[in-house]
């Protein structure tokens, strides 16, 4: 992703910015943990922009390379592979290799989804060696001094059946993310959706209350992202109750009783 002119919108919740900058200064890999839609990816985008600005044009064209991990992903998807063309075969660097060579930040989103034989290639990059072996080329690439690896995952969703191996986890410093306070979330929803501040406050109140069901394991979320979607629909003239029905009630669960209860509360906080 090339550097943007203006900073991606991000409102700090705690000291995560300072912690990330300190980790970056030491090139300590960073692990972001938090529920879906709470701002992890936006945070990385913001930090990548900020670091690129501080390098004042001396950094790579793409300061941030993002990979969404999944369980079909192979090491080749990260490192690179040979391609065929009319002239024969040619090697194409994968996103991880490009970041390692150019000194960008490589962000692996939902890293626990990747197979363990894929994540093990990160080990040499995330300790004192900072190197990436590429078997297919028979070479080892030393990481650019500015390279940083950032990974993320959602511990609530995946914790029971999937987890990082301890040998992988303990190569990172971790930042815990959660949903923002209702006051801050109202600001975020208002900014991102363009909806009236009063409506944004109501949405933040609704989201905060509904997360009581998340705490009881009945639903996941709702995420800040989902509240922004509702706000965007309201901003386009959809009545609030209808917007909640579409972007919140139906999206968040298929459990009929939970849908009814969420619908009741959404109808109570909005009178239209």
């Amino acid at each position, binding site marked *: 992703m090339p550097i943007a002119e203006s900073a991606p919108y991000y409102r700090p919740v705690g000291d995560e910015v300072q912690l990330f900058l300190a980790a970056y200064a030491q090139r300590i890999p960073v692990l972001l943990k938090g529920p879906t839609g709470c701002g992890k990816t936006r945070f990385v985008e913001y930090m990548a922009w900020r670091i690129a600005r501080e390098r004042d044009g001396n950094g790579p064209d793409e300061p941030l390379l993002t990979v969404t991990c999944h369980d079909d992903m192979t090491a080749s998807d990260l490192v690179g592979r040979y391609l065929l063309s*009319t002239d024969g075969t040619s090697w194409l660097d994968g996103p991880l290799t490009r970041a390692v060579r150019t000194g960008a930040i490589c962000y692996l989103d939902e890293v626990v989804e990747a197979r363990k034989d894929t994540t093990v290639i990160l080990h040499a990059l995330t300790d004192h060696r900072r190197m990436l072996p590429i078997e297919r080329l028979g070479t080892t690439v030393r990481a650019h001094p500015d390279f940083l690896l950032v990974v993320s995952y959602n511990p609530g969703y995946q914790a029971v059946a999937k987890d990082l191996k301890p040998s992988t986890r303990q190569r990172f410093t971790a930042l815990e993310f959660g949903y923002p306070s209702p006051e801050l979330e109202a600001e975020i929803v208002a900014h991102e959706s363009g909806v009236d501040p009063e409506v944004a406050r109501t949405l933040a109140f609704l989201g905060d*209350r509904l997360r009581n069901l998340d705490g009881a394991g009945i639903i996941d979320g709702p995420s800040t992202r989902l509240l922004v979607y509702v706000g965007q629909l309201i901003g386009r003239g959809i009545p609030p109750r209808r917007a909640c029905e579409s972007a919140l009630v139906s999206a968040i669960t298929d459990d009929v009783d939970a849908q009814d209860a969420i619908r009741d509360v959404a109808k109570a906080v909005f009178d239209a």
Partner: protein
Amino acid sequence: MRTDRPAPEGLFAHSHGAGHRPPDGAGPHRPPGAPAGGADFEPDRARLSLGYRILSGRAGQLVAFDTSPTGRAVPPDADALYLPSHPPADPHHGLAGREWYRVAVVHRALHHLLGSFAIPGDEPADDETRHRPPLLRFTARFGSPALALKIFLTLEDLRVDAAARRLLPGLAESYRLACHQELHERPPLTMLPARDALAEALVQFSIGADGVVAPRDLDPALARAVPAARALLDPRATVGATLAATIRVYDLVLGLPERAAYRSGRAVRFDEFAGDAEQAPGSPSRAAAGPVTFYPVAFRDFVGESGGAPDPESRLPVTQPVEWLDASTAPGPDGPDGPRRRRSQLRHPPGATEPAPAEGARPAAVSRPVIGPLVPAAGVAVARRLVPTGPHEYVYPEWDGVAGRYLDGHCLVKVARAPLARSQHRLRAARARHAGLLPDLVAALERLQPAGRDVVRRQRHGADVDLDAAIEAMIDLRSGVVPDDRVYTDTQQRRRDVAVAFALDLSASTAEALPPDPADPGADVTRAIDVEREAVSLLIQALERVGDAYGIYGFSGAGRDDVRLSVVKDLTERRTTRTMLRLEGLTPDRNTRIGAAVRFLTEQLTRTDAASKVLFVLSDGRPYDLDYGQQYGEEVSIPYALADTGRALDEARRSNVTPYLVTIDADEADYLSYVSDPHEYHAIGDARELPGALAELYVAARASAVRGVAAGNLR
């Protein structure tokens, strides 16, 4: 054994049957043991409870206080929400009963959201008071704590309901109607003693009255009490403001005479008393007062046993959970007419010579005893052969152990989708309860992965170039033909080659309540069907993670022509969200004809191409059905049913399906042990141990299957 007509591939691939209709009175909403025709809020129980949790962040359980005076057992970590079984009749104002209950539940939830019980600045004075709830420590500082509590609750109700209208504008109209309804039933102030009249005026102010007809001698007190109460309508008012107002109003009440006398009254509007609230006295008055009556507001108050007067403590989270029902009167399996009592009379099958295995123990390797004495078959009419009449009906034979021959076309298995439950709350809670078992289970199963990886050619993505495919692609390129892009090789782990079917006993006996868990007396009443579901639910998560193919079925029956097979998830289907809703929707239904169910599922398993095929049968007792041996007399029905079950299990083994029988009946004599191989039979003494036990059994079964596959590969 072959059926008369082969089952089509992919059952329900193109149909979405509604499944079996649950018996009358049963259903996924109805709590275990709840009588038919219960409280009006029963259909909305789950919805209202979830709504309470959303707003308050706390678990709540609705209790119909007027029909169960000793109370429904409430878990210690849940709030009891005492509500009338029928809402007040409202022929004039159009507030539906469902909306009335919503207002009542929302009111209770908002007390917690707004911190009614988080008393600020409260410091326990001594060890004696330390264990009391903060609110009661506050009211104990008054001369009459009960009066102070009633004043506090009335004022706090005012603050909470005002906040409810602000925070929940969508509910404002329902609130208004509920309050308007209350105002029509209030006692006249002129008929009340002065202190009661002031209390009633405050109550009416709190439910939105514009004014009252009040005796003139009440004016000075109203002029000071109403502003104190009005201050609580301010959005910035906290519970601290209510505490200060309580101190002020308590003094005002003490300043009024106690005697009762009719006085003439005049209509006053509350907004005539417009002044600011006075500064509250520094500390509560220690002067005592006689009883003062605060007449209840139906949507706020639990009308307790005190003849209609409110019992405020019952609305607070300070009360202990309701006393559990006396076990001797509980309508459970241990009652005088309980099924277990009747079944204990059948503890030993006639003629059996072997003692029953110890509870919970795997039986020793004993030779299978003769089931008898058997009645000669002379004089028994030949049953007619059955014929399938629909697309999901299959006919199977049955082994007649008395005659020593198969009865062809004897059983009709009807296959249908299990009904969908509305929610999977119970299973979610169960998964959370057993979450600790899952990581070890997954790890154990992953360690049983078939060793090695297979190279897969001609892939679109992969680590290496597939040379053959690449050469062909180059040739195509140079020939001007669009090449195939599958030019890579990849490695994949060897496929897990196991298919397992879980058959859950759905006979009516699985609806019987299990004995209370002594370790958790407040837990919801649990039945055998619930434990079966929980056990399978836990295993599903692990199987999804490691990739074993599995199917989940429920079986029951009402005669040989009505053997019911409910499909939660077929062997070839992918799991969806509906899978869990169907598992939750399985409903106990009549009898247990195990033989026919085993034959059907054996056939399903043999249709898979898995190297190992496993059948788990979860049951709570012996096989039994209406005509399962009764043609030879009732005393022969048990050995007949066991013989057919044993023969069906033998047929499964000959078809390379390994059957495992798990029974969760602690009282019975392990009937199924007589017809199973010892290592395939497991008795679970405490049904609540089934989830963990089934997980262990599956790992063992899986390990055995892997060894078998490996041995086959080496040959």
